[in-house]
């Protein structure tokens, strides 16, 4: 069993906010207990999968390790009970691709998969470039100082993804706030209560109230797109059929919610984290500035560096062996992506930010059937932003201490104050 101190660190939202604490804990685990069970107070026991190769092995076998049988996100015993009581026995407040297994996962993913293929995203590039230029122009008008997270990184992917979904620009602030309240539900700076969450019931109630607000919004959008279909993702979800039937209410609402939250928040975190890392490693910025062909390397390295999705849970559907350990049917496993992306067996100098790193086979998008649907869009958004920004950015540096969100699921920087010179 993993020692209590380590177990409590790797689930602590504050440890992820600190960064180093969680990195140190996972470094210790990879060396001493790369696949072992943890049972922090208030939680059912779960295996902690820390090595890159073991994460791939679990993700590859999506029939043996299910997403939906238990909560797909680490949750306390009390919170799990409360969700099941609310949801008729289901451990999930929403039912998106993340909570599905086959055959539903395949069928629901197929509905929108085509829209996110690289060849089909090319049609969006010109419009994404306009949005990126506007973001860079706004940054230039801010007089050489800004919070890059708040003023650029949160807003640009939000605008792109909301256009893809079909959410009007006037509703973007609402979508951003709801997203931050959802993923930042443990962060007093971002959550709905404005206070530290210490009670499981209050925590679940808060998350559920955010989910209900999303559902109210997207239910109206479904009605609109059924009556007036457009060329947007909302119309695909609203009018889509699975086995000849419209999507169920929970599944449709969950589809919108995952697109409207993870669809931009993860890219925002990675963009903000990249800028933070470049500010701390100015020689890396010079390399990319002088050779824009390195932007592709910057993107992969910043996705590895930030790893905005900190974990997903899987449940074994049968007895299995993994890395020499006996996993029993029904066991719960935490896939630690930040740990996999710092695995010394795969990445040389894993704690060095290196835009020339090659190969860079990070697991930040996952692996196997559940690999991130929006990964190609995320890469395109970042490429276009960096192309536009670096053409005008001459120099920059930190202008205060950056801060990261207090969260243990989906998170990244929440403030990256910078001073800069642009042409």
């Amino acid at each position, binding site marked *: 069993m993993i020692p209590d101190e380590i177990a409590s660190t790797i689930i602590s939202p504050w440890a992820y906010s600190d960064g180093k604490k969680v990195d140190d804990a996972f470094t210790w685990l990879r060396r001493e207990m790369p696949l072992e069970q943890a049972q922090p107070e208030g939680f059912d026991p779960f295996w902690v999968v820390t090595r890159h190769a073991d994460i*791939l092995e679990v*993700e*590859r076998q999506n029939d043996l390790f299910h997403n939906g049988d238990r909560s797909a996100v680490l949750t306390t015993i009390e919170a799990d009970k409360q969700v099941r009581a609310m949801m008729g026995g289901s451990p999930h407040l929403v039912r998106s691709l993340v909570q599905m297994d086959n055959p539903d996962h395949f069928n629901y993913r197929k509905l929108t*998969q085509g829209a*996110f*293929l*690289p*060849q089909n995203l090319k049609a969006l590039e010109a419009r994404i470039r306009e949005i990126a230029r506007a973001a860079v122009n706004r940054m230039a008008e801010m007089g050489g100082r800004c919070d890059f997270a708040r003023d650029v990184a949160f807003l640009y992917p939000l605008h792109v993804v909301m256009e893809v979904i079909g959410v009007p620009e006037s509703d973007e602030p609402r979508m951003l706030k709801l997203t931050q309240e959802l993923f930042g539900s443990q962060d007093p700076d971002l959550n709905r209560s404005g206070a530290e969450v210490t009670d499981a019931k209050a925590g679940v109630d808060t998350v559920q109230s955010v989910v209900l607000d999303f559902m109210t919004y997207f239910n109206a959008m479904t009605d609109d797109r059924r009556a007036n279909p457009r060329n947007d993702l909302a119309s695909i979800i609203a009018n889509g059929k699975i086995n000849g039937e419209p999507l169920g209410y929970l599944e449709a609402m969950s589809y919108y919610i995952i697109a409207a939250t993870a669809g931009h928040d993860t890219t925002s975190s990675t963009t903000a984290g990249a800028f933070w890392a470049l500010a701390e490693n100015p020689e890396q910025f010079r390399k990319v500035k002088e050779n824009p062909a390195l932007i592709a390397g910057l993107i992969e390295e910043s996705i590895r560096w930030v790893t905005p999705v900190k974990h997903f849970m899987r449940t074994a559907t049968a007895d299995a062996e993994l890395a020499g350990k006996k996993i029993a049917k029904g066991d719960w496993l935490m896939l630690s992506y930040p740990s996999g992306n710092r695995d010394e067996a795969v990445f040389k100098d894993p704690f060095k930010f290196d835009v020339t790193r*090659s*190969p860079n*086979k990070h697991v930040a*998008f996952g*692996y*196997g*059937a559940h*690999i991130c649907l929006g*990964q*190609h869009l995320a890469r395109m958004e970042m490429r276009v932003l960096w192309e536009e920004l670096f053409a005008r950015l001459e120099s920059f540096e930190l202008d205060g201490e950056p801060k990261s969100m207090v969260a243990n699921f989906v998170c990244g920087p929440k403030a990256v104050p910078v001073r800069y010179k642009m042409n």
Partner: protein
Amino acid sequence: MSGEPFKVWQCRTCGYIYDEAAGDPVEGLAPGTRWSEIPADWICPMCGTPKADFDMIEL
């Protein structure tokens, strides 16, 4: 065979593109490596999908 135009294959799961002309040197596939020359047990380098679950596409 060598006179045939190069083709492009795509993973059905993640959208990874294998272009015979470019190959994938990071994966040990030199430019010009034909799809038929890649072993049957090869898997998608991005997501692990088997070779059999790739489609030939026009770009």
